């Protein structure tokens, strides 16, 4: 049985915070397929297109027929724990600091034997379900979980090391005015977040969501304007040292493409909020969070960007907004590089058109705030990097994978936005 995590005591100011270390993060190119699947929570393995052999570790040719056509396919994650060990000493600092560490050898029903992490609630030599997760080096690793859910299983130290679980953690939501802010704050509270700071720009303007936000236990409204470097720096100075999860939901959206608008005014606003806003937040909060990724139960763990699915491909009706989101998406990849060594995970939630004033002219389906909140919280619990929220976003990523050029041509029919 997993021992439930207790709220961490106040930090002893005389104790040095651990410097972040990383599990081994070097992989062959073939094995990055596992990472790509883990980034969105899928269990996939190389499957030979010619003979159907499911193989692991990933190879450059089929170990049965030497075919080099080896697509990654979703595979049943069930198997049997053949053997296990508990590593009590390691030459790798990350595992040395976290010993003892349970691992095992699982024979998948689909064939291959997989060395994997083993959840504490898995009984010896029992049936297991493998979960493909990102570890703190940002690479896909597999973990054996018990077949049936067990109480508090998320609190297992190995599983928690893979996840970005909000439980007992302190969160900043950057924009109290975004329609999704109250639902998001509530969902984080329900998931066990202890403090939920919510940034509010221009307190001299009324915020109709203020009461709903302050009614949620743990919520504190803080002055924050992501377009104002001073404001971002000031808040980072105030709460940056105890922030575990940052959720950037600040967004400026107006319809229209470059030709329809005829000026760069809104485009500047879009870039100021959607792109430069993210950059200012990263420059102010990133270093502090990166230094606290090994800080015990409430360590810094994740950076969440709520992006438009139009970051993937330009939507003509929102041409300039799409461009600003593409910029933000690209910057998030840069942050992934810069946060990599610390293990701070950047999770992008790609959201389809939302049910609000600025998407009024679009037909359904549109995304409501509870769906965004669910995607964020579940994504954090599963430790994901990429989440697609809403039918439009899911449809778009599927089309994108089938062929980005085809999708681009579909999205740029010629009607001016």
């Amino acid at each position, binding site marked *: 049985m997993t021992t439930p995590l207790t709220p961490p005591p106040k930090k002893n100011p005389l104790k040095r915070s651990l410097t972040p270390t990383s599990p081994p993060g070097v992989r062959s190119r073939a094995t990055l397929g596992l990472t790509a699947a883990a980034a969105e929570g899928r269990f996939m393995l190389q499957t030979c297109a010619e003979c159907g052999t499911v193989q692991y570790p990933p190879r450059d040719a089929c170990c049965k027929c030497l075919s080099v056509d080896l697509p990654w396919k979703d595979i049943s994650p069930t198997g049997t724990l053949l053997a296990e060990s508990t590593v009590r000493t390691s030459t790798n600092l990350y595992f040395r600091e976290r010993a003892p560490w349970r691992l095992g050898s699982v024979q998948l029903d689909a064939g291959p034997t997989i060395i994997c992490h083993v959840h504490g609630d898995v009984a010896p030599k029992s049936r297991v379900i493998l979960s493909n997760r990102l570890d703190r080096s940002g690479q896909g690793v597999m973990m054996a979980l018990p077949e049936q859910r067990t109480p508090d299983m998320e609190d297992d130290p190995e599983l928690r090391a893979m996840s970005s679980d909000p439980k007992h953690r302190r969160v900043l939501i950057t924009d109290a005015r975004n329609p999704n802010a109250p639902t998001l704050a509530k969902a984080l509270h329900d998931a066990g977040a202890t403090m939920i700071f919510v940034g509010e720009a*221009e*307190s*001299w*303007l*009324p915020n109709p969501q203020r009461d709903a936000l302050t009614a949620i236990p743990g919520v504190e409204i803080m*002055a924050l*304007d992501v*377009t*104002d*470097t*001073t*404001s971002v720096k000031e808040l980072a100075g105030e709460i940056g040292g105890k922030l575990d999860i940052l959720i950037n939901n600040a967004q400026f959206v*107006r319809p229209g493409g470059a030709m329809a608008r005829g*000026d760069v*005014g*809104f485009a*500047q*606003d879009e870039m100021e909020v959607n792109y430069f806003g993210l950059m200012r937040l990263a420059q102010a909060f990133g270093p502090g969070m990166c230094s606290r990724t090994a800080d015990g139960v409430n360590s810094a763990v994740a950076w969440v960007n709520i992006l438009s699915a139009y970051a993937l491909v330009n939507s003509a009706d929102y041409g300039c907004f799409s461009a600003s989101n593409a910029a933000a998406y690209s910057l998030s990849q840069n942050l992934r590089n810069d946060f990599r060594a610390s293990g701070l995970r950047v999770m992008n939630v790609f959201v389809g058109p939302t049910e609000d*004033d600025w998407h009024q002219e679009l037909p359904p389906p549109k995304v409501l705030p509870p769906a965004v909140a669910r995607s964020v919280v579940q994504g954090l619990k599963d430790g994901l990097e990429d989440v697609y929220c809403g039918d439009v976003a899911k449809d778009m990523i599927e089309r994108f994978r089938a062929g980005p050029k085809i999708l681009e041509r579909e999205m740029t029919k010629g009607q001016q936005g």
Partner: protein
Amino acid sequence: MSTLTDLTQRMASGEVEIVDLTHTLDPDFPVIILPPEFGQCARFRMEEVSAYDHRGPAWKWHNISMSEHTGTHFDAPVHWISGRDVPNGAVDEIPAEKLVGPVVVIDCSEGSAQDDDFELTPEIIEAWEAEHGRIPEDAWVLMRTDWSKRRGADYLNMREDGPHSPGPTPDAMRLLAEERNIRGFGTETVGTDAGQGAHYTPPYPAHFILHGAGKLGLQCLANLDQLPATGAILIAPPLKIRNGTGSPLRVLALVEK
């Protein structure tokens, strides 16, 4: 003794005081809010370029950005459609002599304390003239409301039906612009018009009538309570922006003690 030598000596001795009528340019200072489908007034923003560091070892400087109508600012006639054709209507064209001149202050602070939508009417102007004499031609007229002492949400005073703050009625503007032929009109609020100024005919009379008549505007002024009703000199030169419709500026007054 020359006039200016005399003036500088009096300034040094404190007999002539310099009053700063300007709010600090601050990213969080309110700006006028339009319905969101319109382009908005850019807030004041400042980005560090270097600060005696690797980006510039011996110097510190910032890049700043804002609207022409951010903070304590000047409105030129071309700001409004009614003033688009007046001669020398852009900030760079306004003759320098218009930027320094006499100023009178109409104190509406008591009424504004009672009523957020307090109106400056011809009656109030005439009552003021009964006390202080006729408003001189080509003078700045400032409406004192003590609104500059408000902070945060109280300043814009935004409600469901829009902002609520004092301002002139169309008739008051006609009186000042057309009959008194003033140089310009200034307020302590975020605009020269009342918060609910959209509901007058014409809408926004302090813009429409004032600029249509080629007159100037000043808003977001501070410290009007330190000015006498008459007799002060206002120094209000905007940045010389080509075809500019306005400009943030430092507004000073010379006041004889």
